[in-house]
């Protein structure tokens, strides 16, 4: 948010030519055309909320990744790479790949075989209505809030980068998303997310290619980064031995256990925004392959996000500064590095495609939020708590209306954020409060037959409350950071990592203790929900090249090699 404010004080970064406008307008026309085309294919609840469960592994996998690849993510992490160096790549590699493979191989069978329509829906099947109510209400609330915040931030970025009116940007983008999601449901969202994924790559890939040519390859880039900042900026692991040895103020334990084992596991395996895409797969093998395909491409995303940030550090003639300093000096902040690099290399046409990539990223993220909200609202709140016995057509109609209403609430949130800018910090913290404990609850539910409904509910509640408590403790007494994050030198990101780790452990501990003193459900009721009592279909009939395990190993080896190369 402050970044965007900093941008307000700087001058417009790029000027679009006629051909650039044509490319941007063509994009809007195409996504709307897809929405209208798919309207006829979204008549039943299964069609509207789960895309008919007929997506191939490739479509589900690219959509799974695209829903996460928002424009703010692209610009924010490119800025983080400028500020922190290649350490930012941890959020794409150890902070994503192991979790995505874990989802594919361990958790997906239970989500898919249980035939649940959502993550809160799985909690209902496994732990009962109270756990579902807690998770679905939190999720729906957070989703529309996040959607609105992203909407406002992106409109602010468009204002600064392109000089576009902020109200028009919010209105045009959100109405477009509302139309194509309300018409075609999840199928339309997925369809457009795959298109957006391709456009993001087509628009952004040229920057690292030309940047490396200008810098003299990777060795030239490293030499320039060492001269402009420090040689440590191009090392992924070697500076993580001490909190004070790296610009992020983080220790390797925070990255491995906080980010890799808790935050990313929580996000990629239990955040319904991304899991919903995989639930749309046509069969279990496609559902297992989709996150693996997503992981393969996720591993490559740093080449269009982190590399441009490093190239900016090496090549830009101006020095980018922190957000506060940019506001005071009128200079450019870290987060502007991607549009600055775009403007550096891209002439007419290419610039339009690059801007389209940013807009596509924004819209795919927003459509992901809206379609996930719609499903959770309709199935897990409206049908579960308000109107239980309506027809399928009624719920589809509710889905369409809740799409429009969800977007309207998001727009309201966007304007609320304009007046109360600190909301963004609080909401991001709130979002993290819930994801880490949810991972412990869902994982224990899937792997431990002894976990009871009371254990699941109280574990989830205790984990969330402990996370909120730690956050409030540090807010009231900053010296508490030495206890929560294990070091007084820890920065915000490090604090988030450790808070997630502790809250996950609290959730797991309370779930175990309460489960041990309460009555478990009969094992027969857990078939299709829990490991050990669920029959997983054999894959022995398919060739090695079609087995998820084979491709997971390939992706895993690539992940290890990348970490060694950039050690």
């Amino acid at each position: 948010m402050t970044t965007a404010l900093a941008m307000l004080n700087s001058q417009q970064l790029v000027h679009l030519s006629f051909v650039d406008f044509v490319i941007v307008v063509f994009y809007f026309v195409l996504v709307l055309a897809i929405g209208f085309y798919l309207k006829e294919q979204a008549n039943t609840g299964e069609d509207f909320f789960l895309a008919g469960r007929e997506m191939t592994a490739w479509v589900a996998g690219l959509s799974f990744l695209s829903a996460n690849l928002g424009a703010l993510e692209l610009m924010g992490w490119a800025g983080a790479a400028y500020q922190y160096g290649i350490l930012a790549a941890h959020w794409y590699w150890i902070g994503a790949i192991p979790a995505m493979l874990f989802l594919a191989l361990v958790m997906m069978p239970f989500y898919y075989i249980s035939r649940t329509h959502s993550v809160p829906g799985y909690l209902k099947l496994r732990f009962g209505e109270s756990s579902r109510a807690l998770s679905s209400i939190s999720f729906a609330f957070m989703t529309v809030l996040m959607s609105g915040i992203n909407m406002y931030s992106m409109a602010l970025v468009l204002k600064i980068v392109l000089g576009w009116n902020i109200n028009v940007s919010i209105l045009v983008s959100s109405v477009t998303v509302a139309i194509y999601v309300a018409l075609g449901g999840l199928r339309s969202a997925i369809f457009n997310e795959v298109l957006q994924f391709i456009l993001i790559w087509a628009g952004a890939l040229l920057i690292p290619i030309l940047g490396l040519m200008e810098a003299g390859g990777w060795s030239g880039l490293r030499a320039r980064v060492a001269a402009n900042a420090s040689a440590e900026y191009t090392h992924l692991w070697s500076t993580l031995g001490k909190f004070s040895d790296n610009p992020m103020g983080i220790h390797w334990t925070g990255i491995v256990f906080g980010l890799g084992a808790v935050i990313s596991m929580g996000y990629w395996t239990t955040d319904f925004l991304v899991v919903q895409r995989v639930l749309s797969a046509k069969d279990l093998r496609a559902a297992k392959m989709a996150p693996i395909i997503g992981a393969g491409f996720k591993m490559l995303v740093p080449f269009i996000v982190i590399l441009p940030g490093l190239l900016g550090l090496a090549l830009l003639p101006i020095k980018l500064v922190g957000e506060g300093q940019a506001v005071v000096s009128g200079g450019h902040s870290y987060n502007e590095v991607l549009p600055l690099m775009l403007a550096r290399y891209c002439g007419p046409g290419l610039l339009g495609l690059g801007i389209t990539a940013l807009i596509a990223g924004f819209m795919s993220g927003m459509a992901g939020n809206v379609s996930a909200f719609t499903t959770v609202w309709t199935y897990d709140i409206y049908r579960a708590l308000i109107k239980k016995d309506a027809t399928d057509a009624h719920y589809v109609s509710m889905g369409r209306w809740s799409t429009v209403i969800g977007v309207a609430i998001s727009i309201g949130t966007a304007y609320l954020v304009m007046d109360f800018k600190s909301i963004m910090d609080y909401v991001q913290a709130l979002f993290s409060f819930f994801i880490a404990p949810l991972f412990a609850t869902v994982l224990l539910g899937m792997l431990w037959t002894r976990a009871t409904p009371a254990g699941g509910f109280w574990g989830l509640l205790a984990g969330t409350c402990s996370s909120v408590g730690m956050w409030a403790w540090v807010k009231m007494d900053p010296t508490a950071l030495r206890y929560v994050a294990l070091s007084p030198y820890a920065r915000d990101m490090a604090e988030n990592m450790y808070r997630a780790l502790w809250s996950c452990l609290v959730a797991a501990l309370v779930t175990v203790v309460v489960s041990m003193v309460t009555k478990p459900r009969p094992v027969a009721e857990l078939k299709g929900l829990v490991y050990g009592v669920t029959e997983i279909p054999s894959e022995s009939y398919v060739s090695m090249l079609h087995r998820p395990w084979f491709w997971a190993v390939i992706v895993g080896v690539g992940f290890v090699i990348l970490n060694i190369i950039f050690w």
Partner: protein
Amino acid sequence: MKPGGSISIWFFIGISLLVNGLLILAAGIYELLHPPEVRVVLFDLHASIWWGGLLAALGAGYAIYFAPGKGRD
């Protein structure tokens, strides 16, 4: 995936890449013939021409291969 059994998602992607690629290629050729006074870095590489051409070729390939009625998904 062919929702409704008629048009593949990859056809739409092919059309998108083809149209964008042709527009970028045309803009690149115009810049080659009429070089602007203010130029981007590495202008002499004419990235618009080869990147636009690449996208157009890729898009044309997808659009033809996944054209409606060919039964491919």
